[in-house]
């Protein structure tokens, strides 16, 4: 190394390169030489035709020695091309390579102008600035860094597989990451490969197996790269391992789970031509040979159910014909299948995603179907649950809440006793809901099922009359659950409510339902007015009609939209003849000799929304009118009768207060739920309360400290508007009903679905979350490999180098408007035809068209579908289509001997070994080629019609055929884009990965240590992809073969004398290359530079206020000098 000299002492040689005419054609070399000759510290100026040539380099070396130069400027092309070349040359003579600089007078000068004088002027200036730079340059030595000799390959298609195998075989550990459940990529989908026609799978699967068995390869399938840090030789990569909900160690690939799974979804491996299960293995030869459960959040129907019934689960099971399994699943969360199947307000249906397509799944009626089905085929009640617990629990009130609570406790083995005031169980179910909606047998069915679990029942036991809560505790009950409901009818608070002929709705309904009082004579032939808009009001009105009322009207304060009663009940009521008077509030019940004769009402208008969110009714002054009637039924609202619980805390309006986490009241050991707590609510809400109380009681009795019920906010499964648009509309199954003429009796109105109807309806389900968590797979798996609670994991790896083999996709034919936007079933893409041809495909290798399974007798192949079309689609040629279309046509003719294969093409491109011969073979075997791009494809009358042209004869060609195969363009995968952002590596405008140099560095990226393999970089066929993969692998191996890496010394140092230790630079450094540390004095701070990490970006020197941070060989002083030189006249 030459000892340091002060700037002006340096002897600098300038060598001007002609670069043929690239430079000399524009820059007047002689003038440049003349003008530089006497420039300070330039010892010698020479020129050469090609400085980079051997003689050119020799000239430089000799001159350095002869002239005793200690600095060199080569004026030539861009430093990215030849800086290394000339620095090596300089170094070989003994001077420090960093004292040799490039003045770029080609890219930045001769190529950007045709004006010779200007070019010459600029060349001189550029050279002068670089001379100045060299004057200030200091000799530097590269920094050496260690290498982690472990590689990662992203993407396990054929390219990724090849790259991984080559690196692994060279003896280096390789981590192979694949996003899909199996490796193999698109090649695994192909039938035969051109031009040799050997079976794609047959040549690929051995490699796949080799990957699996290779000691140096760690395979992470169903995994994604999430983050990268570090630099060449020393990267850290974060990999997310998506869970399969199946333990790889245990799964033996037997496939029993898939047989048991009721959910069928589109099979992407068959390019959408077949269905697969929610638990699946893409194809039999998959590596690893493990099944995967696909989950996309939770279906909205499940989230909507207050009792957490797995609606999606039982619907899917019904679709699969597993009715008993469906019922069992339903009963895990709700024992009232038969009841709720009839009267549930089914929020699940309002939240069903199918609403976005047409109408929701008839979830409720499906529930009824499985319940009825069980009875129809004669059911076996479950045996009593063994009493494994000893703490007795008393339940007061045999309505839905009480029964549900008893059910869940009994299942846990607790001794439970229900105390019911009435002679029979059922509560509001039997007293409040009329038989034409909910027949007794339907209620009994559920109650029998519940009691079968071993529950002790004491009827005719009224709290406060026959026993007290204290008694119960004295009699050894350890916990009490209060579920006495809300049966106290509220008054209107208007004159005349005590007239005879005025009924509280619940009394009215109870008399009829329990037949405790015969109202027929009273109602028959009379006019009845019901006041209120809830389900009870509607039930009462419909009941009155059945009792023979001649005229029934409902008077409601708000409008139809605000009516709390179920929409479908209101519709039935109207059909049956109930009149509804909206926006009217009663002001007085009119009577004559103590009998009702009518109601005085007032018109209402809707004001702003109230607490319940419904718009408030506001009386319109002087709008009174009279409704003549003989009977008035008050159905305003009901409240719980809590007079029996003096010492329990209550809400303002008199309901019992409970801790929402365990339903315990203000008194230890006493729990409450149902209408008693919530006020009048639905059956399903009562069930939910009962279940929660059961859990609360268990926690209490087991002495577990109360853990607040965690508020789960599940990711609700959704589709995009585009996806919704793709679903076919299918009519919702109509519930068969008895004719209106038979609605005078109390016969049940709804008849229920037939098995066929139920199955068909269930099959409309969109399977929003894919897996429905029915747990059938868990039952089926003998290896016990399935665990639905598994979570995604992520792992970080230290690697030295990375190969990107992210592959391609085919252009979605939905965007090809003139070709039918993908709406024609018999217009398919190339990948789909590969599946049709493939022995393992949907038609097991027989050529049959998707629409009707017929063997197509004439198939038209359309090339350049989306390729070579800069105006509308992809500007580039997809390269493989010409050959695979020839292959398709040929294979089609081999399969269908009397078939006609016609190919529309723009050009046939057969550049490749054996390709032209293969093309000839296709024509020899009778494939017809027509030179012209297809303009339009449409399907009508069962025929597909293609509008093309034959440009060679100048004729428009109109062809009818049975099937069209589109050679759709190759496009980059969306994942490539995400990955590129993570890796900060470049994409071109179409989204393909960009190589470092199109000719000289085709498998490298701009980031040192990242290499490219396969179609992720651009359209390629298999041999090309494989070749590139091996090339990338050898790049990695070459990198690893070095002991250590040289890190350019152009880094930022720090001048301790100037550094104030402010630490600004630490913040701006993107590479964590600068740290603050204490000086020797132990007080003040100074900067420490981690040279290995410094990339020489210069951010710190820009930020440094004191000028302490200086870039080596790019100091402020140096740059100023260079700028000056550049501006000299």
């Amino acid at each position: 190394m030459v000892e340091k000299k002060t700037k002006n002492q340096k002897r600098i040689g300038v060598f001007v390169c002609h670069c043929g005419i690239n430079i000399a054609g524009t820059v007047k070399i002689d003038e440049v030489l003349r003008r530089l000759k006497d420039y300070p510290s330039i010892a010698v100026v020479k020129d050469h035709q090609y400085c980079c040539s051997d003689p050119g380099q020799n000239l430089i070396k000799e001159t350095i020695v002869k002239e005793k130069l200690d600095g060199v400027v080569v004026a030539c092309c861009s430093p990215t091309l030849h800086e290394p070349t000339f620095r090596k040359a300089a170094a070989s003579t003994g001077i420090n390579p960093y004292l040799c600089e490039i003045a770029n007078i080609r890219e930045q000068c001769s190529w950007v102008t045709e004006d010779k004088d200007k070019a010459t002027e600029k060349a001189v200036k550029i050279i002068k600035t670089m001379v100045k730079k060299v004057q200030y340059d200091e000799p530097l030595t590269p920094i050496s860094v260690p290498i982690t000799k472990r590689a990662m390959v992203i993407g396990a298609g054929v390219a990724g597989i090849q790259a991984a195998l080559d690196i692994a075989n060279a003896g280096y550990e390789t981590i192979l990451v694949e996003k899909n459940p199996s490796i193999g990529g698109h090649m695994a989908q192909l039938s035969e490969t051109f031009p040799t026609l050997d079976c794609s799978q047959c040549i690929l699967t051995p490699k796949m197996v080799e990957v699996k068995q290779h000691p140096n390869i760690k395979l992470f399938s169903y995994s994604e790269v999430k983050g990268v840090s570090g630099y060449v030789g020393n990267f850290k990569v974060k990999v997310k391992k998506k869970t399969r909900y199946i333990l790889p160690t245990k799964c033996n690939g037997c496939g029993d789970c898939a047989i048991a799974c009721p959910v069928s979804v589109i099979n992407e491996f068959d390019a959408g031509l077949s269905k697969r299960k929610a638990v699946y293995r893409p194809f039999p030869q998959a590596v690893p040979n493990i099944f995967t459960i696909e989950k996309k959040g939770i279906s909205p129907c499940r989230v909507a159910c207050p009792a957490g019934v797995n609606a999606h689960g039982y619907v899917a099971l019904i679709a699969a014909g597993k009715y008993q399994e469906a019922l069992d699943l339903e009963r895990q969360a709700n024992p009232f299948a038969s009841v709720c199947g009839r009267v549930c307000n089914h929020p699940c249906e309002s939240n069903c995603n199918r609403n976005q397509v047409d109408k929701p799944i008839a979830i409720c009626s499906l529930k009824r179907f499985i319940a009825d089905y069980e009875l129809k085929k004669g059911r076996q009640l479950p045996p009593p649950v063994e009493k494994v617990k000893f703490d007795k629990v008393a339940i007061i009130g045999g309505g839905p809440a009480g029964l549900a609570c008893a059910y869940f406790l009994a299942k846990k083995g607790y001794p439970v006793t229900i105390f019911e005031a009435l002679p029979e169980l059922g509560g509001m179910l039997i007293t409040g809901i009329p038989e034409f909606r909910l027949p007794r047998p339907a209620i009994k069915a559920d109650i029998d099922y519940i009691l079968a679990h071993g529950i002790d029942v004491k009827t005719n036991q009224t709290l406060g009359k026959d026993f007290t809560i204290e008694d119960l505790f004295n009699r050894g009950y350890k916990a009490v659950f209060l579920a006495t409901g809300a049966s106290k009818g509220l008054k209107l608070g208007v004159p005349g409510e005590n007239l005879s002929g005025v009924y509280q709705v619940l009394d009215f309904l109870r008399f009829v339902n329990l037949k405790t009082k015969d109202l027929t004579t009273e109602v028959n032939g009379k006019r009845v007015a019901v006041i209120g808009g809830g389900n009870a009001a509607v039930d009462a009105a419909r009941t009155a009609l059945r009792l023979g009322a001649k005229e029934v009207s409902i008077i409601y304060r708000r409008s139809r939209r605000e009516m709390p009663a179920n929409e479908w009940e209101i519709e039935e009521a109207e059909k049956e003849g109930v009149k509804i008077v909206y926006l009217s509030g009663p002001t007085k019940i009119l009577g004559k000799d103590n009998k009702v004769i009518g109601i005085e009402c007032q018109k209402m208008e809707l004001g702003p929304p109230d607490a319940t969110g419904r718009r408030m009714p506001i009386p319109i002054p002087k709008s009174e009118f009279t409704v003549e009637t003989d009977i008035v039924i008050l159905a305003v609202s009901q409240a719980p009768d809590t007079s029996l619980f003096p010492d329990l805390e209550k809400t303002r309006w008199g309901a019992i207060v409970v801790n929402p986490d365990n339903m315990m009241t203000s008194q230890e050991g006493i729990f409450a739920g149902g209408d008693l707590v919530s006020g009048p609510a639905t059956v399903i809400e009562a069930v939910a309360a009962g279940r929660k109380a059961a859990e609360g009681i268990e926690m209490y009795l087991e002495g577990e400290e109360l853990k607040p019920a965690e508020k789960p906010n599940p990711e609700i499964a959704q589709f995009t508007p585009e996806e919704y648009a793709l679903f076919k509309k299918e009519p919702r199954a109509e519930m068969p009903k008895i004719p209106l003429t038979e609605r005078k009796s109390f016969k049940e109105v709804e008849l229920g679905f037939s098995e066929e109807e139920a199955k068909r309806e269930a099959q409309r389900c969109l399977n929003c979350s894919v897996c429905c968590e029915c747990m059938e797979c868990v039952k089926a798996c003998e290896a016990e490999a399935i665990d639905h609670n598994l979570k995604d994991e992520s792992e970080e790896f230290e690697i030295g180098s990375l190969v990107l083999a992210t592959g391609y996709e085919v252009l979605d034919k939905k965007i090809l408007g003139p070709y039918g936007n993908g709406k024609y079933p018999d217009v398919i893409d190339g990948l789909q035809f590969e599946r049709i041809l493939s022995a393992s495909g949907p038609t097991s290798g027989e050529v049959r068209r998707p629409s009707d399974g017929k063997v197509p007798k004439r198939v038209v192949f359309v090339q350049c579908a989306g390729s070579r079309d800069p105006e509308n689609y992809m500007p580039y040629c997809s390269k493989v289509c010409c050959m695979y279309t020839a292959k398709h046509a040929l294979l089609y003719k081999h399969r269908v001997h009397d078939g006609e294969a016609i190919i529309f093409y723009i050009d046939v491109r057969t550049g490749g070994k054996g390709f032209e011969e293969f093309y000839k073979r296709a024509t020899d075997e009778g494939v017809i080629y027509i030179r012209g791009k297809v303009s339009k494809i449409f399907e009508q009358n069962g025929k597909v019609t293609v509008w093309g042209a034959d440009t060679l004869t100048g004729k428009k060609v109109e062809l009818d055929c049975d099937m069209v195969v589109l050679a759709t363009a190759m496009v980059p995968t969306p994942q490539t884009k995400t990955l590129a952002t993570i890796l900060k590596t470049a994409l071109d405008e179409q989204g393909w990965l960009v190589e470092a140099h199109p000719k000289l560095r085709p498998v490298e990226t701009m980031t040192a240590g990242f290499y490219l393999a396969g179609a992720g970089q651009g359209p390629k066929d298999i041999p090309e992809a494989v070749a590139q993969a091996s090339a990338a692998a050898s790049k990695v191996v070459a990198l690893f073969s070095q002991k250590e890496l040289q890190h350019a010394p152009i880094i930022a140092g720090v001048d301790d004398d100037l550094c104030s230790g402010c630490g600004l630079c630490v913040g701006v450094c993107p590479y964590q290359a600068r740290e603050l540390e204490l000086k020797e004095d132990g007080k003040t701070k100074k900067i420490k530079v981690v040279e290995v990490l410094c990339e020489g970006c210069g951010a710190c020197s820009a930020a440094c206020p004191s000028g302490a941070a200086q870039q080596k060989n790019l100091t402020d002083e140096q740059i100023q000098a260079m700028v000056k030189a550049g501006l000299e006249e």
Partner: protein
Amino acid sequence: MLEKNSNKEIISLIEELSGQKISDCFQCGSCTAGCPVAFAMEPVPSQAIRMLQLGMVQEVLNSEGIWLCAACNVCGTRCPRGVDYAKISDALRALVLRSKKNRVEPDKISKDLIYDAPQQAFIAGFRKFVG
């Protein structure tokens, strides 16, 4: 054939009047393939453009084909190279009409047609066919 150079001016005139770059066409034929009247056209759109590329201007100007274009614009909408033949043929017709050659003589149109058809048919027709 290849009189391109001798016809430089008129071809660049056609390009100017149509706003289309004739050399952009790579003869895929999708214009012909989508043309509703191609079955009767002589030459078909792609051929007409080809002839212009080769400088056979007179042949195209004298051809029948250019008079059949209904200006439905399918060709231009689907052309992968953004060449709009409707515009080119519009320019070609203009060139002929400007040399005072009427394509249609208004007084020779059948009376019934004039009675039945909407006037916009004739206005459009005359604009395209009468100089």
